[in-house]
């Protein structure tokens, strides 16, 4: 054995050095990659959050505009006609003429009251005031059923559970379904919609499915309707999976925990 031990020690030392430097560099690199990915994720979340806020603001603006238009077109116009009718009254009126004047004033006032009721109903559905959530959903589906066949699926237990939800949650569910129905009628060219309600392991699951042409999520990325649905789902703390397929229509499946709503309901019943 006449190996040059010094040379071999040198090679081993180089090897150990390379190993240490190599592991250090790999560790450093992986840490910076993780940091980059986290930062990217954070930025994406921020952008998404901004989009949601933007959608919410846009929605508010659109609603203000619609209310303004409704007031102008219906209440304003009706009041203008009423004013005109009163102006005409300044001319001489006989008994018959006065009776006719009163009658037309009543008709105009009834029209204004009716318009006010319609505007008010559009602003806030009569959930938990006159109707239960199930009744409101049925009414909503009925209003769309002229153009499309809508099937509601669920058992007695689910309908009871739906009616125990807090007002906030009920309104969110109502609005989500309303938005989805609007989208289907407006864009999907569907002939039928199926809305299924089920409970499983303390979760309320709702599956909305139409048989239309589906939504290309890439193209409708900035669609306000979908953003509204997403905002409400986030508020509900729901887990959701929107799926769209050209052959199988649009499908939105979401579920959220029932526990809090049940306990709130029980608590309110106990107090009552």
């Amino acid at each position, binding site marked *: *054995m006449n*190996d040059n*031990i010094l*040379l*071999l*020690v040198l*090679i*081993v030392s*180089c*090897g*150990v050095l*390379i*190993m240490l430097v*190599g592991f250090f*560099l*790999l560790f450093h*690199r*992986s840490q910076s*990659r*993780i940091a*980059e*990915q986290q930062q990217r994720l954070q930025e994406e979340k921020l952008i998404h959050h901004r989009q949601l806020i933007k959608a919410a603001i846009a929605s508010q603006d659109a609603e203000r505009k619609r209310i303004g238009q409704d007031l102008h077109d219906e209440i304003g116009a009706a009041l203008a006609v009423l004013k005109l009718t009163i102006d005409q009254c300044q001319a001489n009126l006989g008994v018959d003429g006065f009776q006719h004047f009163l009658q037309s004033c009543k008709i105009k006032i009834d029209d204004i009251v009716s318009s006010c009721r319609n505007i008010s109903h559009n602003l806030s559905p009569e959930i938990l005031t006159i109707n239960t959530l199930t009744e409101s959903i049925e009414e909503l589906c009925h209003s769309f059923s002229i153009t499309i066949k809508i099937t509601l699926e669920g058992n007695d237990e689910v309908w009871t559970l739906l009616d125990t939800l807090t007002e906030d949650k009920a309104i969110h569910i109502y609005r989500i379904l309303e938005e989805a129905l609007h989208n289907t009628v407006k864009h999907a060219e569907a002939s039928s919609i199926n809305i299924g309600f089920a409970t499983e392991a303390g979760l309320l699951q709702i599956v909305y499915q139409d048989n239309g042409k589906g939504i290309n999520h890439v193209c409708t990325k900035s669609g306000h309707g979908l953003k509204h649905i997403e905002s409400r789902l986030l508020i509900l703390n729901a887990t959701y999976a929107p799926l769209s397929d050209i052959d199988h229509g649009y499908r939105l499946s979401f579920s959220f925990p029932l526990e809090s709503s049940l306990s709130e309901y029980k608590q309110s019943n106990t107090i009552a």
Partner: protein
Amino acid sequence: MNSLFWYVGVVAPASVLVPIGCALWRYRFIDQALKIILTYLFIAGLTNMAASALAFSNRNNLFLLHFYTAIEFALLSLYFLYLIKNKHFRWIIISVMLVFLFTCVYNAFYIQDIKQFNTYTRSLQAVILPSYGFYYLYKRIGTHHGHALNKAHYWVIIGLIIYFFSSLIQFSFSNFLSANLAKEFRIWLWTLHASIVLVMYMFFAKAYILCKDER
């Protein structure tokens, strides 16, 4: 002690059949680089068979190690050549491979006796190949996007790094240890080496299992 001889001479070398079996099972899905590793496994298996046969008939088998080192280095360099796309680094790999092959031949004929361990070339190999592995990992870490073949290469390279770095000291001082260490300790050392080889083969097997159709 007899069982250790069987472990070092038969069980550990035979474990090469595990990654070879996995590679043949997934052959349709493996890329060119992994096919080179399969060739390497075949050559390692055959060399180990020959070495064990010579050892059991009490004949010196170290001349095989001189040839095997050159072939192993060439094949693993080719493997990295397929993986690494950097033009300059590819030239480095080719140049180092040619110089190393020449060094192996020169070492076998003029520096170290062919019946002794080739400690110089073996230890150089154990420094150079993991360095390629580190370079590849450094460039690719966090960028593989979960593709099966990329994951497979990670397992192969980690296996190589573990094997060569763990064996570096043993490779370097094989002649010294053979001359100065009691036989019992030497057997334990080679048992340890056989176990590291086994671990590397299992890493390769895992790499082949990961390969699947992702088209």
